[in-house]
């Protein structure tokens, strides 16, 4: 370890300078107002949680957690997401409040550092959790709200891929009948390794038709017609329920008029065990990384001793801003430059202009290093000295 230079920040940490802050803030405001208008109430939770509670329950992999020790020797984590803390709150502080509960958040979350650029260790996330509602209306609502929020933020060209882990499990179990091979195949999907999936299927020595049913899963990607194709691959209760759930979600999305942004993708496995039903991920055309995602997690609340079904989504604000193609723009500001004897006049003028809703900087001329440079950073420039001279000249 070498001594860091004084300007250095820990790996993966970022500063937000004024212009970018302003851009991010305005995107966040639009998201927040959309989410608020759907009746989700914002909450905050601490940055630090116990590793044994929120840390373990969270969907984030262990090696991605920031861990530290408190003075009592407990392992703590910097919150890696907001879903687990909200589950904790819903099961404790809000335990008297009956389900369903609609909560939203806008906060920084942390992921253990990675060497490569483009993977911040701390980033802003905004999202909702709809806790204690198992209906397809709830599933559809959070997807529709995510789409509405992205649209409200100005993202036009986006897609949401929707899958269902219940269906994937039902098909795999129906063919394989055992936990271990199911787990192996699910892992290939989770790793997006379709070649490995195909090779593994062929290595199992299954009858040709059974093989084809499994390989058929890889083709289940597209519009609503894929629901019927999925139906043809497997007939059992669990698959039927999953597809019925998706059909209803599709109806909900049609009601909200966002179905053109949605495709079905039964290969979508976002986590090995966390999600229990519908899963979804959002993509913008200008960015190579998914910028939003979520799904149904019916087991999480049970871990906090208030069993309840829940669904929700999270949007990565940093990625959304990137996908919007925004690089940051400072707001328009006015500067009033004065010399000592004009101070009270300057304050009066500033007060008047601020009253008009302008952003006004009051600057004593004696405190300026370089007048021209300062002037160039303002959209409006009032030099009281000059104004006074011109008055005299008249």
């Amino acid at each position, binding site marked *: 370890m070498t001594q860091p230079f004084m300007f250095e920040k820990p790996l993966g940490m970022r500063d937000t300078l004024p212009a970018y802050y302003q851009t991010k803030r305005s995107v966040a405001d639009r998201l927040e107002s959309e989410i608020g208008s759907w009746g989700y109430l914002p909450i905050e939770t601490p940055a630090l949680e116990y590793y044994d509670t929120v840390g373990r329950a969270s969907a984030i992999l262990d090696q991605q957690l920031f861990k530290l020790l408190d003075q009592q020797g407990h392992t703590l984590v910097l919150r890696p997401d907001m879903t687990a803390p909200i589950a904790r709150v819903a099961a404790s502080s809000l335990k008297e409040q009956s389900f369903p509960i609609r909560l939203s958040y806008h906060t920084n979350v942390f992921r253990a550092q990675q060497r490569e650029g483009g993977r911040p260790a701390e980033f802003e996330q905004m999202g909702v959790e709809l806790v204690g509602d198992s209906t397809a209306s709830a599933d559809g609502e959070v997807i529709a709200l995510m789409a509405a929020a992205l649209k409200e933020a100005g993202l036009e060209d986006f897609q949401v891929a929707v899958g269902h882990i219940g269906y994937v499990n039902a098909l795999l179990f129906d063919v394989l009948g055992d936990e271990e091979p199911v787990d192996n195949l699910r892992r290939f999907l989770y790793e*997006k390794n*379709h*070649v490995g999936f195909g090779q593994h299927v062929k290595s199992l020595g299954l009858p040709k038709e059974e093989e084809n049913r499994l390989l058929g899963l890889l083709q289940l990607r597209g519009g609503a017609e894929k629901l019927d194709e999925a139906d043809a691959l497997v007939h059992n209760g669990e698959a039927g329920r999953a597809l019925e759930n998706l059909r209803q979600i599709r109806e909900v999305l049609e009601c909200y008029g966002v179905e053109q942004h949605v495709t079905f993708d039964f290969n979508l496995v976002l986590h090995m065990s966390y999600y229990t039903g519908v899963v979804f991920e959002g993509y913008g*055309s200008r960015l*190579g990384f998914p910028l939003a995602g979520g799904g149904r997690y019916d087991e999480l609340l049970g871990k906090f001793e208030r069993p309840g079904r829940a669904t929700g989504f999270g949007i990565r604000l940093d990625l959304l801003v990137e996908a919007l193609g925004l690089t940051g723009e400072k707001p328009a500001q006015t500067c009033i430059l004065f010399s000592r004897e004009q101070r009270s006049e300057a304050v009066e003028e500033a007060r008047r202009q601020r009253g008009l809703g302008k952003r006004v900087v009051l600057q004593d001329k004696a405190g300026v290093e370089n007048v021209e440079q300062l002037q160039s950073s303002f959209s409006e420039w009032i030099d009281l000295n000059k104004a006074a001279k011109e008055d005299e000249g008249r």
Partner: protein
Amino acid sequence: MTEPLKIAMPKGRIFEEAVELLRRAGFSLPPEFDDSRKLIVDAPEADMRFILAKPMDVPTYVEHGVADIGVAGKDTMLEEERDVHEVLDLGISPCYMAVAGLPGFEKTDVNPKVASKYPNLAARYFKEQGEQVEIIKLNGSIELAPLVGLADRIVDIVSSGRTLKENGLVELETIVSITSRLIVNPVSYRLKDSRIDEIAARLAEVIEEDVR
């Protein structure tokens, strides 16, 4: 006017084989393009743009989405563990990853050292074997390591086995077989699905023919 599909390709032998595959799949690619020194080559007729990269870097370009799809060896996929879709085995450049050493190699009590260009893959393999080794990362000419005593074994790609033989090394264990794969960025996989699916399907047909 859509923008061309961006394809990251490894420079060298795999590139030529992949271009050959694409031509056979019916994509019209410019004839002069094999010996160009340019790093970005457009193929307007096929509506494609090729980004020529170091083989090990192809998954990086694809993961970050500056390339929609790419051709990458399974060796680099295993080493880099990038978040991309691996959709098709192109079957080109077949070889395998192996452990090699001097003839008569025997494990001793001394801390075993393994040299490789693939430190992650090598570390994972030995961990799975229940053996704890120390990995030394080299960038090429891996066969040198056991000859000069830098490491007692190496993990490297073997295609014909000639390099090993000429340097007096023998293969000790086979780790995994390797071919080149068609990989796809997760966002492009959704937003440009029809184009990418078509390319994958046409390539799959050509590959199928070869197998028959």
